[in-house]
């Protein structure tokens, strides 16, 4: 394990804390494995104690005494309010009363300027250069819920003008995109990368730079982004606090399964 004093933190830790801060108290948080699960756990333990973590596999408000390595890990089944199945979990998100309270945390291989995601394939769909896992629940979450937070590695080949495969809907093609498509009004709220935070303009629904991590310039971020983004609104992001890091490391991932 790398040496980490309180002033020192990894970009994974920064990303987990940045996402955790997006969660509001009372939110129902949908997450997958890895860093998105850490972010949800951190939020519940730091800023949103009344948030409820749930998994597409059907577990609601698990105790999570140990970090699960998959959303079907038996660790998500212990001490829950209800153990159901996929049908119930996705219905909770499609349901208009509960779905509007859900924030979904997603990741992807590619993202475009409207926050649409590809987690299926690079190249030709029929015989791709690189095949990924596929949608899983990502398309469902992105279709249903009111707000999504997206984790990305910030690289030019991942922030693209046109997705190779359109797996999960963001703002589609602009302000009336979701409405024209027949989707509900919710959509992506923030993209959290290893360099900074991007948000979507209320009018154009285009991605803009909202914050850079300490030491990262807006120009560096533009360089790593495959389309032009508005940099004018960027501020410097507040680094993780001592308390945030302590909870993340000691409560959420003491074995360093994700953070290391």
């Amino acid at each position, binding site marked *: 394990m790398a040496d980490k004093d309180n002033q020192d933190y990894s970009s994974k830790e920064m990303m987990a804390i940045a996402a955790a801060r997006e969660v509001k108290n009372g939110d129902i948080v949908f997450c997958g494995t890895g860093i998105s699960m850490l972010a949800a756990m951190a939020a519940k333990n730091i800023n949103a104690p009344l948030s409820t973590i749930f998994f597409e596999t059907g577990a609601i408000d698990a105790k999570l005494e140990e970090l699960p390595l*998959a959303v*079907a890990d*038996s660790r998500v089944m212990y001490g829950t309010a209800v*153990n159901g199945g996929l049908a119930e979990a996705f219905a909770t998100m499609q349901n*208009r009363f509960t779905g509007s309270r859900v924030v979904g945390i997603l990741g992807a291989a590619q993202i475009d300027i409207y926050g649409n995601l590809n987690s299926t394939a690079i190249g030709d769909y029929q015989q791709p250069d690189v095949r990924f896992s596929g949608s*899983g629940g*990502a398309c469902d979450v992105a*279709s249903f819920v009111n707000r999504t937070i997206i984790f990305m590695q910030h690289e030019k080949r991942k922030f693209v003008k046109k997705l190779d495969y359109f797996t999960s809907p963001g703002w589609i093609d602009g302000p009336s995109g979701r409405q024209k498509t027949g989707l509900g009004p919710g959509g992506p709220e923030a993209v959290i990368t290893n360099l900074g935070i991007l948000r979507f303009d209320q009018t154009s629904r285009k991605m803009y730079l909202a914050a850079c991590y300490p030491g990262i310039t807006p120009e560096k971020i533009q360089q790593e982004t495959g389309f032009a983004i508005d940099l004018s609104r960027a501020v410097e992001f507040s680094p993780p606090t001592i308390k945030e890091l302590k909870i993340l490391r000691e409560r959420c991932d003491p074995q360093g399964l994700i953070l290391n």
Partner: protein
Amino acid sequence: MKSAPDKVTTLKNAVSSLVPDGCHLSIGGFTINRNPMAAVYEIIRQRKKDLHLYAHSNGQGVDELIGAGCVKRLEIAYAGSGRFAPTCVRFRKAIESGQLKVEDYSNYQMTLRFMAGAMGVPFLPTRSGLGTDIIKKWGFSEELRQAETKIPEQKLVTINNPFGSWGEAPKLVLVPAINPDVTIIHVQQADKRGTARIQGLTFADVEQAKACRHLIITCEELVTEEFLRKEPDRNQIPFINVDAVIHIPWGAYPTACFRHYDYDPVYLNDYRIAAGDESRYQTYLKEKIFDIKDHQELIKQTASEHLKDLIANPETGYANGLERGGE
């Protein structure tokens, strides 16, 4: 057959009689939990071919069936094994090399497709997928869909809401029902007639069990009918759906079985490494499957000390403090 009072049989028998080459199959479980692995290995051992496989996110079992060359076509939402393989390796190779035809759906769409099959309707509606390539791009060609009576002519259909603005959903995606020829699930407890109890999350196992023509159940514990009927609220699958029951302790190994044992991080990491290399994978197939008589022998071969580490804590249902690193 489904009304028989005793359906207990061997896995060899069940697979050879109910899983013919080319059949449409689905298996239970999710990524690294409660996959019917004993049955998966038996299918591989019997060298079944040309299977049409349906899966939502049944990672490990699906990848092993693909890796062994049993699968011709796959309809799936997600092929990953959690942190052990964010994308299943043999799945990825089979698609990138063009050996496997795949049709992509989302997890909810696949769940609804099984649910439609279970409910006896040709489709169910959802808002998931509107505007995406899941609707626009078809993995199976129109020609294939026309030719194959066991595949619907359309991947998905989008319609306007016939009830106007009711439900605040102007458009709906209709997903076609799946009725597999055979489904195999692994459960914690079953009786000899086939009534079954799943502990922990049910994933989409119950929907699959009710959608299929033939259902094979493997179980950790074969219990009495009287035992299960003392608490019928906890049972999910009635005997009327079941064709065969096989008692196989550790039947989900190397995936987890809640309240019985955890997944085996060593096996799963070794598997991923083997899967990445052609010759190592052939060795894996030979040593762990073909040269092994049955699942009991696989379990015996795995050092008992090692298995002990996987046994679930009776309170939490998993192996607390299990060493899970080592990627």
